[in-house]
């Protein structure tokens, strides 16, 4: 989400909402309200930090901002100061990049988990703040959006979006991974156009800035 005066960015620490320091707070609020209304339910359940350069805002202003965020299903997790801001990542040459860490080492091993014990048919949408485990198939036209991992004990033919709040260590696993589209955090990929035969259970995750699919066995 990005407009003239308000920018929402995913960082390693989560989502940060940057506010233009040259503007009146009320105008900024209006713009945030507008943007969130347009942003649909995509951001539901995400936690957001806010940053307004050095300016201090009053308790009342802070409250009305929190109100707007909550009305759109976002969680306010605090103001940031300049010192907290993530330093832009230094480019590391590809060869020296560390191996992507496995997700359970990164602190999302323990989170809420939703069990779905039926096949998700076209038109069904699951939105969950945590992991989602489906015992059944996910058919084309159905979607699962989770802030954590997605595991399908069946055929995944629909759309899966893991780590929707920006968690790049999230993974999508399926007994037969054949999704219409696969998204992890801010990465999107789609299935190859030609039909693929079953290759056994697979796991999709981000490695070196790309979604890769590996065999689980």
């Amino acid at each position, binding site marked *: 989400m990005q407009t003239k005066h308000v920018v929402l960015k995913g960082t390693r620490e989560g989502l940060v909402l940057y506010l233009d320091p040259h503007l009146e707070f009320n105008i900024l609020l209006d713009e945030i309200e507008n943007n969130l209304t347009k942003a649909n339910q995509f951001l539901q359940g995400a936690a957001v930090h806010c940053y307004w350069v050095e300016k201090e805002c009053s308790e009342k202003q802070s409250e009305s901002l929190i109100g707007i965020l909550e009305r759109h299903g976002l969680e306010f997790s605090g103001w940031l100061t300049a010192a907290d801001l993530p330093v832009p990542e230094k480019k590391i040459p590809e060869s020296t990049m560390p191996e992507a860490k496995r997700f359970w080492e990164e602190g999302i091993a323990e989170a809420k988990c939703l069990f779905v014990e039926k096949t998700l048919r076209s*038109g069904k949408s699951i939105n969950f703040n945590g992991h989602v485990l489906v015992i059944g198939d996910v058919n084309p036209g159905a979607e699962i959006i989770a802030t954590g991992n997605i595991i399908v004990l069946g055929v995944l*033919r629909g759309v899966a979006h893991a780590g929707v709040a920006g968690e790049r260590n999230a993974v999508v696993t399926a007994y037969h991974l054949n999704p219409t589209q696969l998204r992890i955090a801010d990465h999107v990929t789609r299935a190859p156009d030609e039909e693929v035969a079953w290759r056994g259970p697979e796991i999709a995750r981000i490695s070196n800035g790309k979604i890769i699919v590996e065999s689980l066995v």
Partner: protein
Amino acid sequence: MGEVIVVTSGKGGVGKTTTSANLGTGLAALGQKVVLVDTDIGLRNLDVVMGLENRIVYDLIDVTSGNCKLKQSLIKDKRFANLYLLPAAQTKDKSAIDPEQMLKLCQELKKEFDYTIIDCPAGIEQGFRNAIAGADCAIVVTTPEVSAVRDADRIIGLLEAAELYNPKLIINRIKPVMVKRGDMMDISDILDILAIDLLGVVPDDESIVISTNKGEPAVMNKASKAGEAYRRMTDRIRGEEVPLMNLDIPDSFFEKFKKLIGMR
């Protein structure tokens, strides 16, 4: 108490009306007391397929709005005295009736008839909700096309949400030649995705077009392959175990010859 069966598909043009007409006629031929209800208000077709268009006096909306008695609106079929049609209104639209009225109507018909077959309109809006309101079970019709299967999948989900569990599947208009060539989805491809019980498979058949135009359901035509498929389905609805029709096409002369000389 009879059974109310809704015939639905989501996608249009896959053969809901033809299926309703044939299953209804087939069940009547087996001696059951059957009523066909057309809920496609504004786009009624079932009367045409049954060849009863010119006998319509009152319709579904006349009944629900109290213009006539239910008995007056039922049209007796030309061929079977135990088969009736309740036609849809052509000059109104889907909002002329609501699910509650439909439920009441179905309960009334159930007392009188062994089978009430409801022809559902295409789509998932009010027409669909009306049609399924009074149903005890559902038949989902699809063709071996990706789009039709997608819509059938959605419909099965919506039926489950409306507590109509375990719908039965009819795969319509399958072309064995194309399936053999690998150019058409086969039965197992479709069942893989939809994962529901199969009621029957109807081969693509020109005689359906002819019988639809004539207003004589193909199920009465002993020479029609599609008619045979419908007859088997009515037997299955009656609770008999009937094998699926053999849709394999015999090898042509050249294929036999090739096999003989070991080219395949």
